[in-house]
């Protein structure tokens, strides 16, 4: 944009943006600050509540379950989501117009825009029915894992689909033209070029799983309390305590860390300078 807005308008926009940023980040900062509250009887800032967490068996058990659930579901969700994104991108190149062309986006976006409450309730009903019918699918980490995979896969598919859509379709013909059969083409072209998208999709899936409360709450069973559920019940029971602040701060740090990792991987594929034209 070469045309600048008038100075007063720019200033007004800047001023109105401040409260937005404040509301976004102040609560997070506040929690981090409170997490370093003084130890009981102490007077200065301390890491006491962090040390406390490390000795709390309930917290450690919830963390362990969250990690098992997060890693397990992310692996499966990434595999299924990658296949989904890849397949739908292939479908897209065949059908260019009308409903058929819009179908892949529809399939991917519907689960993403579905309220998680609806998702959670339907999962609950579904697993109940399945349990009655088969005796399997009793509420627990397994049902939670399946539920997580169902909302992770579309996100991964979206990332992979976007990467595929951004590629020159001639690339795949070029590999065929250069003697690669379907297997070689997938191994030596498709996989390497969508690898950054797969890694990014995995990290996204992991963050989604680690902090999911709604769907987890509906599909959890006895003994499958994850971190978000633990935090919710702790707050409901005894109100907000400094150790919850410490736990929340750790989660914020983890999510930001994964976000940065994702940024690094997504930058990697575009690190090359812009092509020059002519000689």
């Amino acid at each position, binding site marked *: 944009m070469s045309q600048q807005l008038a100075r007063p308008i720019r200033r007004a926009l800047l001023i109105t943006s401040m409260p937005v940023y404040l509301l976004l980040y102040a609560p997070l900062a506040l929690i981090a600050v409170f997490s370093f509250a003084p130890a009981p009887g102490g007077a200065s800032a301390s890491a006491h509540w962090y040390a406390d967490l490390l000795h709390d068996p309930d917290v450690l058990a919830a963390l362990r379950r969250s990690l098992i659930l997060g890693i397990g579901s992310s692996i499966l969700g990434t595999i299924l989501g990658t296949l989904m994104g890849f397949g739908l991108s292939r479908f897209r190149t065949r059908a260019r117009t009308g409903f058929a062309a819009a179908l892949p986006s529809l399939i991917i976006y519907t689960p993403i825009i579905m309220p998680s409450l609806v998702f959670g309730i339907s999962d609950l009903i579904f697993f109940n029915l399945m349990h009655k019918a088969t005796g399997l699918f009793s509420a627990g980490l397994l049902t939670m894992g399946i539920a997580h995979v169902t909302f992770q896969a579309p996100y991964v598919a979206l990332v992979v689909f976007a990467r595929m859509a951004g*590629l*020159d379709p*001639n*690339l795949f*013909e*070029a*590999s*065929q*033209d*250069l*003697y*690669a*059969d379907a297997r*070689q083409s997938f191994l*030596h*072209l498709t996989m*390497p*070029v969508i690898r950054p998208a797969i890694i990014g999709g995995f990290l996204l899936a992991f963050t989604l799983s680690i902090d999911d409360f709604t769907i987890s709450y509906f599909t959890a069973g006895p003994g499958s309390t994850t971190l978000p559920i633990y935090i919710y019940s702790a707050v409901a029971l005894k109100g907000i305590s400094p150790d919850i602040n410490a736990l929340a701060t750790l989660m914020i740090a983890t999510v930001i860390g994964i976000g940065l990792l994702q940024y690094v991987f997504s930058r990697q*594929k575009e690190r*090359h*300078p*812009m*092509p*020059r*034209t*002519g*000689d």
Partner: protein
Amino acid sequence: MPGTTDRGGITLEGISRVFGGGIVAVDQIDLAIRPGEFFTLLGPSGCGKTTLLRMIAGFETPDSGRIVISGREMQTVPPHRRAVNTVFQSYALFPHLNVAENIGFGLRMRGIARAERKFRTDQIMALLQIDDFATRNPAQLSGGQRQRVALARALVNEPEVVLLDEPLSALDAKLRAELQVELMRMQKRLGMTFIFVTHDQQEALVMSDRIAVMERGRLLQVGPVLDVYEQPRSVFVAEFLGLSNIWPITPAPGNTADTPLGRLTIVTPIGNERTAMIRPEKIWIYNDTAAPLDRPNIFRGTVREAIYMGASTQYRVELHDGSIVLALDTNNQAAERSWQPGEAVALEIKPENIILIDG
């Protein structure tokens, strides 16, 4: 192999391709391309030339007809089993591989050992003068360098046939002219059959042994460049390839025909032909006072436009009856042989230079 005598030769028999919605992209094409030939498919965009190329590569399957490459039937052979390599218009270089790896891709897929792969890749990179970029990524290359890499990636496999889909269209004029010459040299040196697709008539004229002019899925004319240019058999070919003056004609007594310009003397009496064509460079221009009035087909008029093009000048001359004739004159004489708008001139249309076209 029984068919090896025809290594690099291509025969198309009754090839058709109909897309969804009944769009006939390629319509009953018969064509024989000789081994080692630089053959150009020339036509406007949407004429089916790229579809035809893609059927030879194996990316499209013809709805009917036979494709024979080097004596072998190709209808059921997938692209990766054809001894044909393509240079794509978009170059389609693999973004995750560097230049040397891109070029070696085909050899690697065929399971050729690393040492030989390196030897052949180095050799072709030296030949195309891209060895300095071996470890760069495609995104770090200029358009001309990418073009060379795409060409090297095809040539290194020593295919029987190289297919080139408008490979020069994204380059600027000077680079394009350089690469045209380089492509021709490379083709003659390696002796492979090149099938080149372009919509650029100049490119087709410069590079090809033979050309085929395509329109709406059909081949209008196939032949050596000189024949197609000098003896176009249709108005479309005449107009698509170079500049032309085209007039409807009706028979008149003897070796003459009536045109909007007036009566024209021609070499032999006309038969079914209803159109006369003459290239602008085959029309002689004289000062009005120096017109050779003893010769046939002298037309007098006034220069309306003179476009100076360096080596030659193109004149739009309006005859006394109002019709416009294009004439081209080389600037190999002194300034007295050039005319300004408004000057009176005489044009000579020699009977032997008039091409008669059916219909």
